[in-house]
């Protein structure tokens, strides 16, 4: 009997070993599928970080767009990173201003914009930036190929563009005070066609290499016209598995990671400083107005009343984050209308009444599609599912990978509801609001409000900045009144920075500027 007992114990040991093996094996698999764990010695990118102190590894939660061409980039995550590689005639500052970049100076009276080309600006391939490159870059975004929509529709406001070797004059068909923001578009060399895979720009960092699903490497551009970057080299490591992020930070494989959750931050320990900014995203449960029952404004309003946004912040974000009520976030100072924030107070009774009014007294079932690599959105969706239950709505979460979210939800518009954050590509209200005009190509919620469309025309054609701001605010109010989406918050941007590193700068747009990051010691 004794021996048998021993055998049982051995069996138990074996079982638990198998279990542990399974756990360990799983993590290993993750590393293979989306190379998350760079603690291993087989990773060449992690090694130099130890040898050369003037390089860092930055973790990012998703791979960049397939094409790295800045004019064609779709994902916010791509623009966020490539901000370090490209510049326009002007570029944004952390305060929300626009300062000259490839241009050395500019003047404007609202209708005519004049730029002077900065002398001595070089592309990463060594060529000097010439006026023809500037004209090419603007035209590429302004003129439609094959009769389609131009890459930046707003640029069709350009009536004429004249250029000599040093001066570019742009005349608009009518005064537009926010036009300058579009000229942050990347200046690219005219005779270079490798932007998809080996992008070349004028920014403080130059592109070195990319391994799909694994990493992107940037190095300091020595011939940068302005204040050069401090770091020699930055490696962006793609860590799609939310669980691996913490481990990669603690193991030392990653030095900087933006957009962390409050739970992750709480566990990080003493090796990191936590910098807090805002994500500059409009996080909402976006609703597809082309799908029943979301075509009914009462249903959408009911959803807004049913969701308790403060509880979302408390439960999923430890109270971090700023509530919003329309497609505008507080960092955009003058455009942000705080009176819209609490337009739909949490009120389950009212939600039920609105649903009954719309013909759904017993609620309905819906699917919330969430990209699986964004834990904050998954957490938000989980809380929403619980809250909607109280109003009689049965929601279920469908996780999709980021690639299929882009193709099916964003481009294909095949979804009912989705929880994501939408960013502004330029620092204008237009960047956030134009997408909801009925004909916009990126109107993925199929919003259709004639009033909204006409307000947009008025806003973009008004000369005075004050009047324009008013129109934009009316557009925001229209979105709120029609309950276009269930607006939630602008997430707090918690950035973990290894101690000894400093210089992270926050912008009112979704970018991760690394030019100022440096070692203090």
């Amino acid at each position, binding site marked *: *009997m004794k021996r*048998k007992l021993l055998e*049982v114990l051995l*069996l*138990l040991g074996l*079982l*638990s070993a*198998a*279990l542990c093996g*399974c*756990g360990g*094996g*799983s993590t290993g*698999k*993750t590393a293979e*599928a989306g190379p998350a764990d760079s603690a291993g010695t087989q990773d060449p990118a992690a090694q130099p970080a130890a040898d050369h102190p003037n390089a860092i590894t930055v973790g990012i939660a998703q791979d960049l767009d397939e094409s790295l061409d800045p004019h064609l980039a779709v994902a916010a995550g791509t623009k966020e990173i490539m901000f370090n590689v490209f510049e326009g005639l002007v570029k944004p500052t952390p305060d929300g201003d626009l300062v000259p970049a490839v241009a050395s100076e500019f003047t404007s009276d609202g209708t005519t914009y004049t730029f002077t080309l900065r002398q001595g600006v070089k592309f990463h391939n060594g060529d000097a930036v010439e006026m023809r490159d500037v004209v090419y870059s603007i035209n590429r975004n302004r003129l439609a190929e094959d009769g389609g929509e131009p890459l930046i529709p707003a640029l069709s406001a350009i009536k004429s563009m004249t250029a000599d070797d040093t001066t570019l004059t742009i005349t608009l068909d009518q005064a537009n005070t926010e036009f300058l923001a579009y000229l942050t578009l990347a200046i690219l060399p005219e005779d270079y066609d490798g932007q998809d895979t080996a992008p070349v720009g004028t920014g403080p960092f130059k592109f070195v290499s990319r391994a799909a699903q694994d990493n992107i490497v940037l190095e300091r551009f020595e011939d940068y016209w302005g204040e050069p970057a401090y770091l020699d080299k930055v490696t962006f490591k793609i860590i799609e*598995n*939310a*669980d691996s992020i*913490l481990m990669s930070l603690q193991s030392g494989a990653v030095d900087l990671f933006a957009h962390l959750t409050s*739970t*992750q931050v*709480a*566990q990080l320990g003493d090796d990191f400083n936590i910098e807090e900014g805002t994500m500059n995203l409009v996080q909402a449960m976006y609703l597809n107005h082309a799908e029943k029952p979301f075509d009914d404004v009462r249903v959408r309003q009911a959803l807004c009343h049913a969701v308790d946004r403060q*509880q979302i912040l408390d*439960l*999923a974000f430890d109270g971090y984050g700023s509530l919003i009520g329309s497609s505008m976030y507080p960092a955009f100072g003058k455009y942000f209308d705080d009176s819209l924030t609490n337009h739909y107070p949490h009120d389950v009774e009212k939600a039920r009444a609105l649903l009954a009014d719309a013909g759904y007294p017993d609620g309905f079932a819906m699917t919330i599609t969430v990209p*699986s690599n964004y*834990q904050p959105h*998954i*957490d938000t*969706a*989980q*809380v929403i*599912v*619980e809250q909607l239950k109280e109003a009689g709505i049965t929601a*279920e*979460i*469908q*996780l*999709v990978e980021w690639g299929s979210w882009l193709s099916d939800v964003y481009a294909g518009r095949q979804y009912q509801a989705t929880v994501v954050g939408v960013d502004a590509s330029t620092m204008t209200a237009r960047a956030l609001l134009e997408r909801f005009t009925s004909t916009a190509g990126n109107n993925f919620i199929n919003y259709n409000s004639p009033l909204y469309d006409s307000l947009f025309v008025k806003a973009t054609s008004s000369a005075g900045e004050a009047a324009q701001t008013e129109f934009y605010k009316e557009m925001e109010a229209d979105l709120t009144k029609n309950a276009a989406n269930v607006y939630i918050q602008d997430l707090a941007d918690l950035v973990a920075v290894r101690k000894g590193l400093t210089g992270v700068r926050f912008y009112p747009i979704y970018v991760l500027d690394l030019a100022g990051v440096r070692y203090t010691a």
Partner: protein
Amino acid sequence: MKRRNGFLTAGLVLTGLVAALILLGAFWTPYDPNAMAAGPKFDSPSPAHWMGTDNFGRDIFSRVLQGAGATASIALATLFIGAAGGCLAGALTGYFGGAADELLMRLNDVLTAFPSILLALVVISVLGPGKKINVILALGLVFIPSFARVSRTAFASLRDVNYIQSARLMGASNLRILAVHMLPNTAPVLLPALTIGFNNAVLAEASMSFLGIGVTPPDASLGYMLSEAQGMLFAAPWYAAGTGLVIVAMVFSVGLLGEGLRRRDKGVL
């Protein structure tokens, strides 16, 4: 034969306990498993919350009860597909032999050559993630080869024994021979295989959910909970501990049962 079979008794008792807990979880849990703020966030284990609470303030014990049910039901369904498919293939190839035997068993070898989780990943990516039924189908397919091999050996060893040949001489149909005369006699081999298979299925479901391709939140399954727990290992260590313990208990009890069955039948074979 009259000796007490401690393994069988212990296995039956423990498995019964686990099964009772799962059944209980299907009808009653202390709190709604998905109800948020049932208690404070990250509350450590206490009389009110036996296994503490998670990042949403959900009661972990309630979620474990429900998650164990989800995991067990996926494992059982997986086992059913794997065992039925495997036995069918094993019976046909073991009994008839010939070219079909060669072909099917080589195909079997090919399937076995894939790491099982990788194969399941491929199937899931074809079927689409996030649906319980797809997880079951994927795992079921992965489990067929091992059952096919085990049952083929059993059927092949019975093919030429005297009572089968007698049955054949008496004109019994192949189907009757397979189902009535052979299948019951493969039980000593198949039953332990089933219990081991169940354990593997539990672990496989846990691994798949751990990798994020099993059940979708907010539903609980033990593997998914374990993967969630990993993200808060330092904030709520009891989350991982409680969930892991239940997996161990489940696998251990059925493992004991399997060992008991094997010992009981040792004299028979």
